[in-house]
Protein backbone atom coordinates (compact mmCIF):
# COMPACT_ATOMS: atom_id res chain seq x y z
CA UNK A 1 0.00 0.00 0.00
CA UNK A 2 2.81 2.40 0.86
CA UNK A 3 4.34 1.73 -2.58
CA UNK A 4 1.11 2.73 -4.29
CA UNK A 5 0.61 5.87 -2.21
CA UNK A 6 4.18 6.99 -2.80
CA UNK A 7 4.10 6.39 -6.54
CA UNK A 8 0.56 7.76 -6.74
CA UNK A 9 1.50 11.08 -5.19
CA UNK A 10 4.45 11.49 -7.57
CA UNK A 11 2.59 10.48 -10.74
CA UNK A 12 -0.62 12.37 -9.93
CA UNK A 13 1.48 15.38 -9.01
CA UNK A 14 3.27 15.17 -12.35
CA UNK A 15 0.00 14.88 -14.29
CA UNK A 16 -1.61 17.80 -12.46
CA UNK A 17 1.40 20.00 -12.95
CA UNK A 18 1.52 19.11 -16.66
CA UNK A 19 -2.19 19.86 -17.13
CA UNK A 20 -2.07 23.08 -15.09
CA UNK A 21 0.99 24.20 -16.96
CA UNK A 22 3.19 24.58 -13.89
CA UNK A 23 5.62 21.78 -14.58
CA UNK A 24 8.43 23.95 -13.21
CA UNK A 25 6.93 23.63 -9.76
CA UNK A 26 7.52 19.86 -9.74
CA UNK A 27 11.28 20.24 -10.03
CA UNK A 28 11.41 22.82 -7.30
CA UNK A 29 9.02 20.87 -5.05
CA UNK A 30 11.02 17.66 -5.46
CA UNK A 31 14.27 19.24 -4.34
CA UNK A 32 12.58 21.29 -1.62
CA UNK A 33 10.98 18.10 -0.34
CA UNK A 34 14.30 16.29 -0.33
CA UNK A 35 15.82 19.13 1.62
CA UNK A 36 12.96 19.10 4.13
CA UNK A 37 13.52 15.37 4.63
CA UNK A 38 17.18 15.92 5.46
CA UNK A 39 16.46 18.96 7.63
CA UNK A 40 13.89 17.05 9.65
CA UNK A 41 16.26 14.09 10.05
CA UNK A 42 19.04 16.38 11.21
CA UNK A 43 16.64 18.06 13.59
CA UNK A 44 15.98 14.62 15.03
CA UNK A 45 19.67 14.03 15.75
CA UNK A 46 19.88 16.32 18.77
CA UNK A 47 16.62 15.06 20.22
CA UNK A 48 17.49 11.41 19.63
CA UNK A 49 21.01 11.71 21.03
CA UNK A 50 19.78 13.43 24.16
CA UNK A 51 16.77 11.25 24.90
CA UNK A 52 18.42 7.97 24.03
CA UNK A 53 21.17 8.88 26.51
CA UNK A 54 18.57 9.62 29.16
CA UNK A 55 16.71 6.44 28.38
CA UNK A 56 19.89 4.39 28.73
CA UNK A 57 20.22 5.79 32.24
CA UNK A 58 16.61 4.94 33.03
CA UNK A 59 17.09 1.45 31.67
CA UNK A 60 20.29 0.72 33.60
CA UNK A 61 18.78 2.05 36.79
CA UNK A 62 15.89 -0.37 36.41
CA UNK A 63 13.46 2.52 36.13
CA UNK A 64 11.94 1.30 32.87
CA UNK A 65 11.14 -2.10 34.32
CA UNK A 66 9.47 -0.47 37.27
CA UNK A 67 7.28 1.73 35.11
CA UNK A 68 6.48 -1.24 32.93
CA UNK A 69 5.37 -3.27 35.93
CA UNK A 70 3.18 -0.44 37.18
CA UNK A 71 1.08 -0.23 34.06
CA UNK A 72 1.53 -3.74 32.81
CA UNK A 73 -2.16 -4.75 32.60
CA UNK A 74 -2.81 -2.14 29.89
CA UNK A 75 0.30 -3.01 27.93
CA UNK A 76 -0.20 -6.75 28.35
CA UNK A 77 -3.60 -6.33 26.77
CA UNK A 78 -2.23 -4.29 23.86
CA UNK A 79 0.95 -6.33 23.33
CA UNK A 80 0.10 -9.93 24.23
CA UNK A 81 3.07 -11.34 22.29
CA UNK A 82 5.85 -9.33 23.96
CA UNK A 83 7.44 -11.12 26.97
CA UNK A 84 6.40 -9.51 30.24
CA UNK A 85 9.76 -8.18 31.41
CA UNK A 86 11.24 -7.45 27.99
CA UNK A 87 12.87 -3.97 27.82
CA UNK A 88 10.53 -3.12 24.92
CA UNK A 89 7.67 -2.89 27.44
CA UNK A 90 9.37 -0.08 29.36
CA UNK A 91 10.04 1.89 26.19
CA UNK A 92 6.51 1.39 24.93
CA UNK A 93 5.20 2.77 28.21
CA UNK A 94 7.57 5.74 28.18
CA UNK A 95 6.46 6.44 24.61
CA UNK A 96 2.79 6.29 25.58
CA UNK A 97 3.23 8.54 28.61
CA UNK A 98 5.23 11.10 26.62
CA UNK A 99 2.43 11.20 24.02
CA UNK A 100 -0.15 11.53 26.75
CA UNK A 101 1.47 14.68 28.09
CA UNK A 102 2.04 16.17 24.67
CA UNK A 103 5.83 15.81 24.86
CA UNK A 104 6.16 15.07 21.16
CA UNK A 105 9.92 15.42 20.97
CA UNK A 106 10.42 12.95 23.81
CA UNK A 107 7.82 10.51 22.50
CA UNK A 108 9.56 9.92 19.16
CA UNK A 109 12.95 8.76 20.53
CA UNK A 110 11.25 6.48 23.02
CA UNK A 111 9.01 5.06 20.32
CA UNK A 112 12.04 4.44 18.09
CA UNK A 113 13.82 2.73 20.96
CA UNK A 114 10.74 0.56 21.56
CA UNK A 115 10.78 -0.26 17.85
CA UNK A 116 14.45 -1.32 18.04
CA UNK A 117 13.68 -3.58 20.99
CA UNK A 118 10.71 -5.09 19.17
CA UNK A 119 12.95 -5.65 16.15
CA UNK A 120 15.11 -7.92 18.32
CA UNK A 121 12.08 -10.18 18.78
CA UNK A 122 11.31 -10.11 15.07
CA UNK A 123 12.16 -13.28 13.11
CA UNK A 124 11.86 -11.50 9.73
CA UNK A 125 13.78 -8.22 9.94
CA UNK A 126 12.07 -6.59 6.97
CA UNK A 127 8.47 -7.33 7.89
CA UNK A 128 6.65 -5.64 10.75
CA UNK A 129 5.45 -7.77 13.64
CA UNK A 130 1.92 -7.37 15.04
CA UNK A 131 3.40 -5.64 18.11
CA UNK A 132 5.12 -3.08 15.86
CA UNK A 133 1.85 -2.41 14.08
CA UNK A 134 0.10 -1.87 17.41
CA UNK A 135 2.80 0.55 18.52
CA UNK A 136 2.34 2.47 15.28
CA UNK A 137 -1.42 2.48 15.64
CA UNK A 138 -1.07 4.04 19.11
CA UNK A 139 1.34 6.66 17.81
CA UNK A 140 -0.56 7.65 14.68
CA UNK A 141 -3.69 8.18 16.75
CA UNK A 142 -1.49 9.67 19.50
CA UNK A 143 -3.75 9.92 22.50
CA UNK A 144 -3.12 13.35 24.01
CA UNK A 145 -4.17 14.77 27.35
CA UNK A 146 -2.75 18.23 26.85
CA UNK A 147 -2.31 19.59 23.31
CA UNK A 148 0.37 22.05 24.41
CA UNK A 149 1.25 23.48 20.99
CA UNK A 150 -2.35 24.25 20.15
CA UNK A 151 -3.00 25.95 23.48
CA UNK A 152 0.06 28.11 22.89
CA UNK A 153 -1.12 29.13 19.40
CA UNK A 154 -4.62 29.94 20.65
CA UNK A 155 -3.14 32.00 23.45
CA UNK A 156 -1.08 33.82 20.87
CA UNK A 157 -4.20 34.88 18.96
CA UNK A 158 -5.94 36.19 22.11
CA UNK A 159 -8.37 33.38 22.72
CA UNK A 160 -10.77 34.10 25.58
CA UNK A 161 -10.28 30.54 26.76
CA UNK A 162 -7.26 28.88 25.09
CA UNK A 163 -7.66 25.58 26.89
CA UNK A 164 -11.34 25.09 26.08
CA UNK A 165 -10.32 22.64 23.36
CA UNK A 166 -8.70 20.26 25.85
CA UNK A 167 -11.97 18.42 26.46
CA UNK A 168 -12.97 18.15 22.80
CA UNK A 169 -9.45 17.08 21.81
CA UNK A 170 -9.38 14.43 24.52
CA UNK A 171 -12.70 13.01 23.40
CA UNK A 172 -11.75 13.04 19.70
CA UNK A 173 -8.34 11.51 20.36
CA UNK A 174 -9.88 8.82 22.58
CA UNK A 175 -12.29 7.89 19.81
CA UNK A 176 -9.49 7.86 17.22
CA UNK A 177 -7.31 5.72 19.46
CA UNK A 178 -10.13 3.28 20.19
CA UNK A 179 -10.73 3.01 16.45
CA UNK A 180 -7.02 2.42 15.83
CA UNK A 181 -6.83 -0.30 18.49
CA UNK A 182 -9.99 -1.97 17.22
CA UNK A 183 -8.77 -1.90 13.60
CA UNK A 184 -5.34 -3.13 14.65
CA UNK A 185 -6.90 -6.02 16.54
CA UNK A 186 -9.11 -6.88 13.64
CA UNK A 187 -6.22 -6.98 11.13
CA UNK A 188 -4.04 -8.85 13.60
CA UNK A 189 -6.76 -11.45 14.04
CA UNK A 190 -7.41 -11.72 10.31
CA UNK A 191 -3.73 -12.00 9.41
CA UNK A 192 -2.69 -14.52 12.00
CA UNK A 193 -5.84 -16.48 12.69
CA UNK A 194 -5.55 -18.58 9.56
CA UNK A 195 -1.81 -19.16 9.85
CA UNK A 196 -1.84 -20.53 13.38
CA UNK A 197 -4.14 -20.67 16.40
CA UNK A 198 -4.03 -17.27 18.14
CA UNK A 199 -1.73 -17.26 21.11
CA UNK A 200 -3.42 -14.84 23.42
CA UNK A 201 -7.00 -14.66 22.26
CA UNK A 202 -6.27 -11.71 20.01
CA UNK A 203 -9.37 -10.19 18.52
CA UNK A 204 -11.78 -11.26 21.24
CA UNK A 205 -12.07 -7.98 23.06
CA UNK A 206 -11.63 -5.21 20.56
CA UNK A 207 -13.23 -2.27 22.29
CA UNK A 208 -12.33 -2.45 25.93
CA UNK A 209 -10.93 1.05 25.61
CA UNK A 210 -12.59 4.32 24.72
Amino acid sequence: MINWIWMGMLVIGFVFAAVNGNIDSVTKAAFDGAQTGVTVSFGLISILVFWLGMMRLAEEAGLLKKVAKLLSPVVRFLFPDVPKDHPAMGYILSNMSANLFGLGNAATPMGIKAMQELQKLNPDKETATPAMCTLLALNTASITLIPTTLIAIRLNYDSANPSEIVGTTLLATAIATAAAIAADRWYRFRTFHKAKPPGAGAGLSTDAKG
Partner: protein
Amino acid sequence: MLSWLNVISAWSIPIIIAFIPLYAATRKVPVYESFVDGAKDGFSTAIQIIPHLVGMMVAISVFRASGALEFLVGWTGPFLQSLGVPSEVLPLGLLRPLTGTGSLAYTTELIRAYGPDSLIGRIASTIQGSTDTTLYVLTVYFGAVGIRNGRYALKVGLFSDIVGFIAAIAVCLIVFG
Protein backbone atom coordinates in the same frame (compact mmCIF):
# COMPACT_ATOMS: atom_id res chain seq x y z
CA MET B 1 -7.18 25.30 34.54
CA LEU B 2 -4.82 27.08 32.19
CA SER B 3 -2.29 28.03 34.83
CA TRP B 4 -2.33 24.44 36.02
CA LEU B 5 -1.65 23.26 32.46
CA ASN B 6 1.14 25.77 32.06
CA VAL B 7 2.77 24.58 35.25
CA ILE B 8 2.65 20.97 34.04
CA SER B 9 4.11 21.72 30.64
CA ALA B 10 6.83 23.92 32.11
CA TRP B 11 7.88 21.45 34.80
CA SER B 12 7.47 17.99 33.32
CA ILE B 13 10.67 17.82 31.23
CA PRO B 14 12.93 19.51 33.80
CA ILE B 15 11.66 17.09 36.44
CA ILE B 16 12.29 14.10 34.17
CA ILE B 17 15.84 15.17 33.32
CA ALA B 18 16.68 15.79 36.97
CA PHE B 19 14.97 12.70 38.34
CA ILE B 20 16.40 10.06 35.97
CA PRO B 21 20.11 10.76 36.73
CA LEU B 22 19.37 11.12 40.43
CA TYR B 23 17.54 7.82 40.55
CA ALA B 24 20.24 6.12 38.46
CA ALA B 25 22.95 7.46 40.80
CA THR B 26 21.23 5.91 43.82
CA ARG B 27 21.34 2.60 41.92
CA LYS B 28 25.12 2.96 41.50
CA VAL B 29 24.89 3.54 37.74
CA PRO B 30 27.86 5.57 36.39
CA VAL B 31 25.50 8.28 35.16
CA TYR B 32 27.61 10.29 32.75
CA GLU B 33 29.28 7.31 31.06
CA SER B 34 26.05 5.48 30.66
CA PHE B 35 24.35 8.61 29.26
CA VAL B 36 27.07 9.03 26.63
CA ASP B 37 26.95 5.36 25.83
CA GLY B 38 23.22 5.43 25.13
CA ALA B 39 23.39 8.76 23.32
CA LYS B 40 25.81 7.32 20.74
CA ASP B 41 22.96 5.41 19.12
CA GLY B 42 21.05 8.61 18.46
CA PHE B 43 23.18 9.77 15.57
CA SER B 44 23.14 6.55 13.58
CA THR B 45 19.42 6.18 14.15
CA ALA B 46 18.72 9.67 12.79
CA ILE B 47 20.98 9.05 9.77
CA GLN B 48 19.19 5.81 9.02
CA ILE B 49 15.89 7.67 8.76
CA ILE B 50 17.13 10.13 6.09
CA PRO B 51 16.38 8.08 2.94
CA HIS B 52 12.90 7.22 4.17
CA LEU B 53 12.08 10.78 5.08
CA VAL B 54 13.53 12.25 1.88
CA GLY B 55 11.50 9.84 -0.24
CA MET B 56 8.29 10.67 1.56
CA MET B 57 8.83 14.44 1.70
CA VAL B 58 9.56 14.62 -2.04
CA ALA B 59 6.31 12.83 -2.88
CA ILE B 60 4.25 14.99 -0.52
CA SER B 61 5.91 18.18 -1.72
CA VAL B 62 5.31 17.37 -5.42
CA PHE B 63 1.72 16.39 -4.68
CA ARG B 64 1.07 19.72 -2.98
CA ALA B 65 2.95 21.99 -5.36
CA SER B 66 1.30 20.52 -8.45
CA GLY B 67 -2.13 21.61 -7.26
CA ALA B 68 -3.37 18.03 -6.92
CA LEU B 69 -4.08 18.44 -3.21
CA GLU B 70 -5.98 21.66 -3.86
CA PHE B 71 -8.09 19.93 -6.49
CA LEU B 72 -8.90 17.10 -4.10
CA VAL B 73 -9.94 19.63 -1.47
CA GLY B 74 -12.14 21.59 -3.87
CA TRP B 75 -13.74 18.43 -5.19
CA THR B 76 -14.76 17.03 -1.81
CA GLY B 77 -15.64 20.40 -0.22
CA PRO B 78 -19.27 20.78 -1.37
CA PHE B 79 -20.11 17.30 -0.13
CA LEU B 80 -18.94 18.07 3.38
CA GLN B 81 -20.56 21.47 3.37
CA SER B 82 -23.91 19.78 2.80
CA LEU B 83 -23.40 17.98 6.13
CA GLY B 84 -23.05 21.26 8.01
CA VAL B 85 -19.29 21.10 8.20
CA PRO B 86 -17.46 24.35 7.45
CA SER B 87 -15.60 23.60 4.21
CA GLU B 88 -12.62 25.61 5.46
CA VAL B 89 -11.55 22.77 7.76
CA LEU B 90 -11.62 20.13 5.04
CA PRO B 91 -8.07 20.67 3.74
CA LEU B 92 -6.94 19.98 7.27
CA GLY B 93 -8.37 16.47 7.14
CA LEU B 94 -6.30 15.79 4.03
CA LEU B 95 -3.17 17.58 5.24
CA ARG B 96 -3.13 16.11 8.74
CA PRO B 97 -2.02 12.54 7.89
CA LEU B 98 0.48 13.79 5.28
CA THR B 99 2.39 16.65 6.85
CA GLY B 100 2.67 17.81 10.44
CA THR B 101 4.21 21.20 9.72
CA GLY B 102 1.85 21.77 6.78
CA SER B 103 -1.27 21.05 8.82
CA LEU B 104 0.00 23.06 11.79
CA ALA B 105 0.61 26.01 9.47
CA TYR B 106 -2.88 25.64 8.03
CA THR B 107 -4.44 25.42 11.51
CA THR B 108 -2.58 28.53 12.60
CA GLU B 109 -3.82 30.32 9.49
CA LEU B 110 -7.44 29.33 10.21
CA ILE B 111 -7.10 30.48 13.82
CA ARG B 112 -5.60 33.77 12.65
CA ALA B 113 -8.24 34.34 9.96
CA TYR B 114 -11.40 33.29 11.83
CA GLY B 115 -10.31 33.74 15.45
CA PRO B 116 -9.43 31.06 18.00
CA ASP B 117 -12.91 31.16 19.53
CA SER B 118 -14.86 30.76 16.27
CA LEU B 119 -16.34 27.37 15.42
CA ILE B 120 -13.78 26.96 12.64
CA GLY B 121 -10.94 27.86 15.02
CA ARG B 122 -12.14 25.38 17.58
CA ILE B 123 -12.67 22.55 15.10
CA ALA B 124 -9.26 23.17 13.55
CA SER B 125 -7.57 23.14 16.97
CA THR B 126 -9.31 19.90 17.90
CA ILE B 127 -8.42 18.17 14.61
CA GLN B 128 -4.80 19.26 14.83
CA GLY B 129 -4.48 18.09 18.43
CA SER B 130 -6.31 14.81 18.17
CA THR B 131 -4.25 12.77 15.70
CA ASP B 132 -0.64 12.60 14.61
CA THR B 133 0.95 12.72 11.16
CA THR B 134 0.46 9.10 10.14
CA LEU B 135 2.83 9.09 7.18
CA TYR B 136 5.60 10.72 9.22
CA VAL B 137 5.22 8.37 12.18
CA LEU B 138 5.19 5.38 9.85
CA THR B 139 8.24 6.58 7.91
CA VAL B 140 10.31 7.43 10.97
CA TYR B 141 9.45 4.39 13.12
CA PHE B 142 9.77 1.78 10.39
CA GLY B 143 12.71 3.61 8.81
CA ALA B 144 14.66 3.53 12.06
CA VAL B 145 14.67 -0.27 12.14
CA GLY B 146 14.67 -0.95 8.41
CA ILE B 147 11.19 -2.45 8.10
CA ARG B 148 10.08 -2.55 4.46
CA ASN B 149 6.83 -4.41 4.76
CA GLY B 150 4.62 -2.55 7.20
CA ARG B 151 1.75 -5.03 6.81
CA TYR B 152 -1.54 -3.32 7.74
CA ALA B 153 -0.05 -0.45 9.79
CA LEU B 154 -0.76 2.23 7.17
CA LYS B 155 -4.39 1.18 6.76
CA VAL B 156 -4.92 1.27 10.51
CA GLY B 157 -3.27 4.69 10.76
CA LEU B 158 -5.33 6.22 7.95
CA PHE B 159 -8.51 4.65 9.28
CA SER B 160 -7.94 6.20 12.69
CA ASP B 161 -7.22 9.56 11.00
CA ILE B 162 -10.60 9.46 9.30
CA VAL B 163 -12.34 8.46 12.51
CA GLY B 164 -10.46 11.16 14.44
CA PHE B 165 -11.33 13.81 11.84
CA ILE B 166 -15.03 12.97 11.91
CA ALA B 167 -15.02 12.67 15.70
CA ALA B 168 -13.32 16.05 16.11
CA ILE B 169 -15.92 17.78 13.94
CA ALA B 170 -18.86 15.95 15.54
CA VAL B 171 -17.67 16.65 19.08
CA CYS B 172 -17.11 20.35 18.32
CA LEU B 173 -20.51 20.71 16.63
CA ILE B 174 -22.16 19.15 19.69
CA VAL B 175 -20.16 21.04 22.32
CA PHE B 176 -19.75 24.45 20.65
CA GLY B 177 -22.37 24.37 17.88
